[in-house]
């Protein structure tokens, strides 16, 4: 078996009496979509924060392609190749779609501390930004101020920004939250496209999407991974059914 792209070993996190992560271990292999499901408050978002370096773990370790990320903050983990999207679309509202993606692209190229030349003056960067917008279905929206986008478009803009980072790993926190059936379908095919770029840890509540996309599913309940396996294994796991899936499936 090859080395996993992302590996978490025995992560713990407590907030006072609340256990958000309890000995969480998981692996993400190249080319795969690993879905993380669980009821509200199970600690899914906290786990993503721990992986992305926004929240320090009490104990445990995260490895990216075998390298420990111990002690690295969010900035350095992003530089190392962890790209994440947020539960609430995280974009820069005052900037245009094009500028948002450019910001991400130039950050990846380590060209942010350039003070004089116009950001919109580099043709190859502009072309790259347009390409990313095209891929997420925002072609022709380059000049629109991000604040004026619809909810669904914001989700896609954020994915374009994440894509422009050319990361080693995607951590996506509910990319379909708040979208109607049509929007969900579009994001679903977009995620199929993204998996060609890098493996993905996907937190999502939309079970149809999860079972259609995921190669592997881990179920988190009260901060503990109670089951991990292929979609079929998860469907037939009695503990999971009891804790989470209920009668829906």
């Amino acid at each position, binding site marked *: 078996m090859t080395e996993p792209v992302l590996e978490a070993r025995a992560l713990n996190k407590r907030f006072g009496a609340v256990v958000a992560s309890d000995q969480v271990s998981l692996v993400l292999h190249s080319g795969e979509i690993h879905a993380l499901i669980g009821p509200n408050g199970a600690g899914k978002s906290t786990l993503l924060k721990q992986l*992305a370096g*926004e929240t320090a773990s009490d104990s445990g370790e995260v490895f990216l392609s075998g390298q420990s990320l111990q002690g690295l*903050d*969010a*900035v*350095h983990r*992003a*530089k190392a190749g962890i*790209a*994440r999207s*947020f539960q609430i679309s*995280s*974009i*820069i*509202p*005052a*900037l245009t779609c094009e*500028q948002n993606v*450019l*910001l*991400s692209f*130039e*950050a*990846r190229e380590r*060209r*942010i*501390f*350039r*003070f*004089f*030349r*116009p*950001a*919109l003056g580099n043709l190859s960067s502009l072309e790259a930004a347009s390409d990313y917008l095209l891929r997420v279905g925002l072609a022709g929206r380059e000049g629109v101020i991000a604040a004026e986008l619809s909810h669904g478009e914001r989700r896609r803009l954020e994915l374009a*920004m994440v894509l422009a*980072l050319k990361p080693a790993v995607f951590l996506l926190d509910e990319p379909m939250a708040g979208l109607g059936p049509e929007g969900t379908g579009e994001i679903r095919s977009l995620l199929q496209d993204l998996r060609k770029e890098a493996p993905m840890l996907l937190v999502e509540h939309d079970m149809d999407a999860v079972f259609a996309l995921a190669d592997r599913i881990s179920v988190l309940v009260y901060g503990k991974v109670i089951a991990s396996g292929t979609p079929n294994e998860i469907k037939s796991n009695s503990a999971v059914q009891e804790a989470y899936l209920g009668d829906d499936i």
Partner: protein
Amino acid sequence: MLRSNLVNIAVIVLLVAYAVSGEMFDAPYNITLATKVAILGMAGAGLNLALGYCGLISFGHAAFFGLGGYVAGILAVHAFNHQPIFLGWSGTNQMIAIWVFALLATGLLALLIGLLSLRTSGVYFIMITLAFAQMLYYFAISWPSYGGEDGLSTYLRNGFPGLNTMDGMSFFMVCLAWLVFVLWLSSRIINSRFGLAMQAVRENPVRLAGLGVSPFRVKLTVFVLSGMITGIAGALYTDLNRFVSPSVLSWHMSGEIMILVIIGGVATLSGPVAGAMLFIFLEQWLGGLTEFWQFWLGLMLLLVVLFARGGIIGTLNRWRAS
């Protein structure tokens, strides 16, 4: 983009026209006022980079304005008295040399204040910047060698090669050149890649960190740049008045710079200049009518904050755009 450029040019033209009218009608006081607008506008442009574009609400920019002012005053007084500062070097009365020292001193001060205060945000940041400026203010008051509470007179304006700086119009041109340079520099920076990151810091620092760019580094860079620009304005202010006193370090000064940025237009290029114009106009005109002109200034500030987001220039840009 073109519209806002027209507005920017109109503001500068208005300022120049006012100074020229002073020259034509032999009203040197008008030139002094125009120079004051240019200097305060420049101080505001410095603050605007941090406050407007990067969301760093510094209530301590008087520290930079005042330090620039004291660097100019102290060096000039030593040169005037041929009195060594250290190692037998007795200051300078050349503006260019003074600017270099003012940039170094205010840059270092901004680095120091920034390193300590930029870890905080919101109200804490406002209070820490205020506290640093007040520390300097009380230090200046209690330091008798440079005038203490009474301030420091420099007698003559510092020199500039090829110019008689004691001539009001010549000195105005020096200040105008600085102002235009600072506005040009600001516009380059705002539109650069770094400018995108500045706006990202203001609106969504978590996202910026998630892109692998440290918001703290961006903020510190902006803060130092902002402080240096305001510091140069302070040095020019000493030359304008041929006098510097602790009042340029007080929180009133910080408030004044902030008010003219807000009235003129936060995050607009020429907003601070327009704000300085209105400020000086009110001070002169209303100040002549009533002792309580600042009451009306306060009322105006309230109206701008409540109803005219983007201040004078923001409103003009919107009005022209619609």
